[in-house]
């Protein structure tokens, strides 16, 4: 199973303590590595065998005294990691056709032959794999790269954090970087994240569980794998679980397994510019997808924020290849609104009236970092 698909821990396996009003999870850490290593070794001996055999072995063996109550969540997460994705739809179809054929009076041989042929399988193979998609029958697979005890610990932490968040009814998220990715993912998942405040380097988002929506908190929890890709974040969620209420706090300092890496850049233009700029401007820092800008009734996501290391304020930089030319007016509106905004446009698409505009850097094949740097070195001025 890809690590992106690890499910949150269920309520009864969440381990936490309540300190003042904060719910502090019992994070897995380096001190758990010894028994996690033993757990991995034990599971590795069952590779290629059905899950049910490993489960049976775990049920019968003595609990590791080093693990205590944390053994069950660790086993659960490890099992998910070791199971391959199932071909559930195909197997369901096979079963339904087979039992329907038998119910209609077909003999065993006829029913098997008919269904096996329609699924391009041999009859013996069909019967042997009739329930192969079910959890008890799936064979364990050792992932590549092989998980280490530390990997397992931070994977469990992620599942623990997601499990806690599934009980949330409101949350606040402060994000530095990766804002567009998080907001786009939240929009795709129908997670109702609202921008409350946006500064140059960070954005503050708020989430409130809609009335009667039992799955809203799960959708919020699905954002957790993205958060480690931000430069910094702090998520505070009001949670209610097992009769206790409190605030669960998740920050960039908590060790959780990041999800699949989001694309670092949207295009080669951006990638080349970032590399060139950082090579040239040693006393500047470049932050990717810093925070959204409010432009009218919409949000705009500049590609970069550049600022000198000693300064608080910076410059927004947008590199627009303009595959869709209808967005040009929006970008020009932003240019008029923000004094600290540099817009890089293909030379042949710059409106004639704006050639020579102080906030526009025209390029042909590549955005020249020294031209942009020259613009940034000028004082900001109100334009248009």
């Amino acid at each position, binding site marked *: 199973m890809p690590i992106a698909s690890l499910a949150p821990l269920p*309520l009864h396996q969440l381990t936490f303590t309540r300190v003042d009003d904060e719910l502090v999870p019992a994070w897995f850490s380096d001190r758990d590595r010894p028994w996690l290593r033993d757990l991995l070794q034990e599971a590795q001996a069952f590779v290629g065998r059905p899950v049910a055999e490993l489960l049976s072995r775990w049920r*019968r063996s*003595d609990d590791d005294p080093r693990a205590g109550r944390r053994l069950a969540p660790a086993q659960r997460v490890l099992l998910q990691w070791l199971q391959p994705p199932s071909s*559930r739809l195909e197997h*369901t179809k096979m*079963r*339904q056709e*087979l*039992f*329907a054929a*038998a*119910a209609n009076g077909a003999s*065993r041989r006829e*029913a098997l032959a008919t269904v096996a042929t329609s699924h391009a399988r041999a009859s013996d193979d069909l*019967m042997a794999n*009739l*329930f192969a998609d*079910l*959890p*008890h029958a799936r064979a364990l697979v050792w992932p590549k790269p092989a998980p280490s005890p530390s990997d397992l610990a931070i994977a469990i932490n992620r599942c623990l954090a997601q499990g806690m968040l599934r009980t949330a*009814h409101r949350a606040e998220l402060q994000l530095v970087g990766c804002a567009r990715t998080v907001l786009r993912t939240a929009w795709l998942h129908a997670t109702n994240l609202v921008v409350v405040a946006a500064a140059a380097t960070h954005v503050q988002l708020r989430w409130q569980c809609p*009335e*009667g929506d*039992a799955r809203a908190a799960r959708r919020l929890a699905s954002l957790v794998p993205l958060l480690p890709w931000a430069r910094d974040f702090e998520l505070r969620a009001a949670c*209610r679980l097992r009769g206790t*209420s409190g605030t669960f706090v998740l920050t960039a300092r908590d060790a959780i397994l990041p999800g699949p890496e989001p694309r670092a850049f949207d295009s080669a233009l951006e990638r080349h510019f970032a590399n060139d700029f950082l090579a040239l401007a040693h006393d500047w820092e470049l932050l990717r997808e810093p925070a959204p800008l409010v432009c009218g009734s919409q949000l705009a996501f500049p590609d970069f924020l550049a600022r000198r290391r000693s300064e608080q304020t910076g410059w927004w930089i947008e590199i627009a290849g303009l595959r869709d030319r209808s967005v040009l007016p929006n970008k020009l509106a932003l240019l008029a609104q923000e004094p600290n905004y540099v817009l890089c446009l293909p030379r042949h698409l710059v409106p004639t009236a704006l050639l020579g505009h102080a906030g526009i850097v025209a390029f042909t094949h590549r955005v020249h970092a020294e031209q942009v740097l020259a613009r940034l070195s000028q004082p900001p001025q109100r334009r248009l």
Partner: protein
Amino acid sequence: MVTDTTTILLTEGELRLRGWPSDVVPPFGLVAAGAELRGPARLRRRARHALVASARPFCDSITPSPLAPDECPPTPLPPPSTLATWLASDSEGLVAGLPERERIDLVLAAAHQTKARTLLVVRDSGAETVWRRALRERGFSTMTNDEGACALAITSAGDAAHSMHWRAHRHDLLVVDRPEQMPAPTVHAVLDGSAALHRLGLVDAHGLARVGEWSAGLGTLLAVAAVDSSPRRLHLHLPLSTTERADYETAWHTFLCAFDAFAAAQPNAGFGTFIQQARRDDSQRPALFAWHRALRVASYNAAKAAACAELIERHRGQRLLLFAPDRASTYELSRAHLIAPVTAELPRRERTDTLTAFATGRLRALVGPRLLDLGVSEGSADVGILIGGGFGEAQQAARVRRIATTGIVYQLVAQDTVEVGRAHRFARTPAAASTDVHPRR
């Protein structure tokens, strides 16, 4: 004289009363927290009664919107006889022993009379499937209206217990079907978490002994229906093979050695205490495994497999339900006889489709462990085979009720094992006949 109005609120699943009159005794279970009284949501009803009795004004912010005329369920005619009793006891109480059809009638009639949005809590997804199908056949949809509030919502007990903090104020009639088949903590979480004014519990006759457990949340026992005639029952005593007998005796001996020592040391402790201790005690745990091993051998073995094959062949073409002891035997029987299984491991959609196919006659046989207990309608099969295992009298009675009164139930019992005593203990009526059987192999 200005009388303050008491406000009744629900916050994060907890009942809160503000401005409670100082001269009115609050219902037992509410505790003072600053200027408020707080307690489980179920006390809303008692709080309202106390305020009405003392003629004090109150504002109840929890009241869900009543059903619109087009949302009201059709009322069965004539109305169920138990309806009047329930309404007379202030729309709260338990009714025992009703057959499935009359349960549905009573729930629809109660919702129609009270005009209240209803939450129906059932044991599992199998029971949920049966209720949805039955209500659809009556022309009543369980879909939500435009505002997102359901006229009649059906959910499993586990889901209800987990989500009651947001469901609590969306219904005013709580119906719990077969609480005796649900874990006690789950039932209590549902009953305490619901703020419904009207409450109805539907219990099987076997659940009468536990009625007192639910009186705080569902009211008193109002009526016990007479049990209809049951299908014919036949116990078949089957021998274990030599190997199986040796396995069973060895396992049983290991278990008894530990259990006898336990019973001698703690004569007043029950088997449940032994289980709890043995789980944690390295020296006793092998005895627990041995107990399970012995049960496994007794509940499904070569003779039972052969008996199932004979019975399936004998009753080919009839509607057949096989109640297996566990998943492994379910899949084995399914493979051997091409009978559709129903287990919790299968995808939910596939399970629902299978149960619907049986209800509509497209499938004539099903095999499964617990989901079949309530997942098929009562009286929907001609033949039932209780292969082994089971959790007690209530479960066995539920299984037998799936078989039509004109049908037959075979109970397969492993000879000279713990199953013999259990079979007689759990059967509500004595078997019509019991016989030692040596099936053809």
